[in-house]
């Protein structure tokens, strides 16, 4: 029979070993080697902290916004409702997929294939730092993640100060030929406000972050600047751009009269990415002209 102190030591050692085993297990589970990033935000975050995914999701936006080190990484075409083709994804044997709410239906299937799925894309600019650190934490690159978050924060604070003017801007999403305005609770709307714009929404509210408003309201609101963001396949973009630039109603507004109708050529106002500071800077320089 062992003594009481001996038993205590044994129990303590067992607890310690169990804790160490659990930690080791958690660490190995948290850092799978084969990672798929379905969004440009997660792909670029991973690349910036030194992790190369085995594949990257490819949706409407193209690959221009990917960091150079990711340009040769295999793409997985994304389509509704599941996102990636599940057979193609399974054949890559990923342990972890960084996804987004858009592909939530597919996430259930991925989990049934024993793939860990994490939705880490930020909804607004203020969430970007937490999202970067979350992704970095999951792949055991906490320090690199904190450095990246600080770097983005510092760049953002440099480009969001000293507005020379605060123009009234209507940011319009073009789905086909039907325009919807971005509201403050959208990625683009939030970003425009950080760039110094006063967002024109005619008081519309919607959980989705977008609202259809009538042409009459656009004329009545009379924005100083209109920025169109086409949301379409690459082949259809030019047609929608032309339609936006020649919209007769928009020409009646101050924006139209002063040739201040712009059309964004990429999806930086639609989809989160770590180049938020560069996007804000570009919006201020090219559209708002308030630097």
């Amino acid at each position, binding site marked *: 029979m062992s003594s009481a102190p001996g038993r205590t030591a044994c129990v303590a050692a067992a607890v310690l070993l169990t804790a160490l085993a659990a930690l080791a297990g958690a660490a190995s589970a948290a850092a799978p080697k084969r990672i798929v990033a379905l969004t440009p935000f997660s792909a670029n975050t991973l690349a910036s902290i030194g992790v190369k995914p085995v594949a990257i999701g490819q949706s409407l936006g193209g690959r221009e916004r990917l960091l150079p080190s990711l340009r040769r990484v295999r793409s997985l075409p994304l389509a509704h409702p599941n996102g990636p083709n599940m*057979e193609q994804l399974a*054949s890559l*044997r990923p342990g972890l997929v960084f996804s987004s709410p858009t592909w939530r*239906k597919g996430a259930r*299937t991925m989990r049934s*294939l024993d793939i860990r799925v994490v939705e880490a894309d930020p909804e607004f600019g203020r969430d970007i730092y937490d999202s970067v650190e979350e992704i970095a934490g999951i792949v055991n690159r906490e320090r690199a993640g904190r450095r990246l978050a600080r770097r983005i924060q510092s760049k953002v604070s440099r480009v969001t100060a000293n507005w020379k003017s605060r123009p009234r801007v209507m940011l319009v999403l073009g*789905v086909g030929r039907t325009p919807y305005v971005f509201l403050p609770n959208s990625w683009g709307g939030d970003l425009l406000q950080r760039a110094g714009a006063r967002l024109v929404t005619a008081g519309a509210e919607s959980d989705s972050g977008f609202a259809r408003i009538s042409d009459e309201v656009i004329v009545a609101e009379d924005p100083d600047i209109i920025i169109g963001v086409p949301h379409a396949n690459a082949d259809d973009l030019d047609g929608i751009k032309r339609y936006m630039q020649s919209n007769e109603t928009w020409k009646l507004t101050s924006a139209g009269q002063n040739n201040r109708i712009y059309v964004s050529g990429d999806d930086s106002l639609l989809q989160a990415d770590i180049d938020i500071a560069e996007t804000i800077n570009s919006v201020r320089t090219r559209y708002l002209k308030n630097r």
Partner: protein
Amino acid sequence: VLLARRSLVVAGLVVALLAGIGASLALGAIDIPLADVVDVMTGDGQEGPSKQIVLQLRLPRTVDAILVGAALGVAGAMLQGALANPLASPDVIGVTAGAGFGAVLILLAFPGSIALLPVGALVFGLLAATLVFMVAWIGPDGGGVGRLILAGIAIAALFAAGTTGLMTAYPDRVQSAVFFLAGGLVSDGWEEMRVIWPYFAVGFAIALCLIRPLDRLALGDDVAASLGTRPRVIRLTAGASAALLAAASAAIAGLLGFLGLVVPHVVRMAGGTASHGFVVPVSALGGAALLVAGDTLARTAKPPLELPVGPFMVVIGVPMFLWLLRKAV
């Protein structure tokens, strides 16, 4: 001669279904050698992506296609028989529009609760059918075929307007609803079928029980009543069975109304008989064969993208339908 013709139709459809099942398990975005597929199906396959793909993605999807195709074929046959109307299909009793609204509601307004998608489609599909039957049956002269069809058109328009309203309110999420509205199966394992299968089971069971009463109903309401059949009860029960089958199908595969309309006609024309003892089970076989073939085509036409199966079924089904129609005329 008629028996030989019917046997030939059944044999042809069984062969088509078996070939479709084989193709559905063997073909996909990832090339897996046929021998490996056979090994996996016979339990000899090695652990790895191939086994996962065949057992967890292709097999459940093939089973989904068989059940949904059979259910829509039976639903169409039941409704066309019960309403004595060649244009009857699950669309007529509002199920398709109701299920579309339920699914779009979840997809657009509550995307965080995507797991409820099949339940939403099922519940609203059945709700729409219930409303149609209530409007058609309550009041003087209730239960007539014309009244049922008009009630169906009105209720379907109501739910279609609701769907359009949702799509207008959530423009940035509309794309997620397009696939469902166009009709398509997805590789998502057994999860949805685990929830939905009882509705298929009850729908098929009721359909089997109604085969003889529907044959009597085909003789006209008066004759059917003289033979001890209650025409209104039979119509209501057949409608309920079709509603269950169509709503359950919509929950799994979106809106595939075309199949329920065309398959029973093709079966009647090919078999040369309108007997429900032939039309109902063979419509199940034909619907399953058509959907399995269409889904395989939709998955393999432009890999790795998966296209909605609805248009593919039309491409396969319409030429066959037109050919038979011309022969019948």
